[in-house]
């Protein structure tokens, strides 16, 4: 898995590429932790580069949600592929995390929170 990061004030946009499974979750967590500075109160996870996800990848996303919620921040998810959306739907994760069609919309909606 490759990851790219962008920072807008105190929001962090995270964009992982590749397959999101047991083999890649540790890389994801590690790289994210390095970028998760004190000031960050919102994460936008852009998933348009994720070709595959299973329950291990889902677990890492829930972990990210818990991590940012614990410090009072929010997590938004943008640009999911159909396979990812399907997994999200079955898992019930949509009850706690919002999906946005684009990164810009996700940013707009969590800015100021």
């Amino acid at each position, binding site marked *: 898995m490759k990851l790219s990061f962008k920072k807008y004030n105190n929001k962090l946009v995270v964009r992982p590429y590749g*397959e999101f*499974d*047991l*083999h890649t979750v540790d890389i994801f967590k590690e790289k994210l932790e390095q970028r998760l500075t004190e000031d960050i109160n919102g994460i936008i996870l852009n998933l348009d580069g994720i070709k*595959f996800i*299973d*329950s*291990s990848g*889902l*677990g890492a996303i*829930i972990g990210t949600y818990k991590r940012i919620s614990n410090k009072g921040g929010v997590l938004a998810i943008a640009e999911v592929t*159909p*396979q990812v959306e*399907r*997994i999200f739907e*079955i*898992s019930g994760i949509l009850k706690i995390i919002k999906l946005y069609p684009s990164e810009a919309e996700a940013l707009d909606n969590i800015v100021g929170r």
Partner: protein
Amino acid sequence: MENKARLVIDSLSDNIGLARVTVASFASQLNFTLAELEEIKVAISEAVSNSIIHGYQGEIGEIDISMRVHEHQLEIIIEDQGCGIEDIKTACEPAYTTADRMGLGLVFIDSFMDKFEIESKVNQGTILKMVKIPAQEQKQVN
């Protein structure tokens, strides 16, 4: 037509993608849609991950994946010689996990495959049997 293949891998997370690719490639001789092939991949991914994490608990063992195409259906048997499951019924409950994970792996397999059975003996290992039939074939039968 009948066709068989068998993939045996070391229980390393490096091999999860290999297992997915191999089974999906074998499955593609049937009339599965792309969405159905994705479902098969998730099931394989969950089963192999479980053998690595729960079955062998990080030790190196072998995971055996047998595939068969028979009468337009795909049969998959995934076997490990790991620690086994004590209570299969409980293991299958959503959110049940013994390893601080999601507890959704077996739930996903069950919802993505047409048939799903688990056999397991503590300290001997676990066998997962699954069947998937292309939706297109199911329609033709009815």
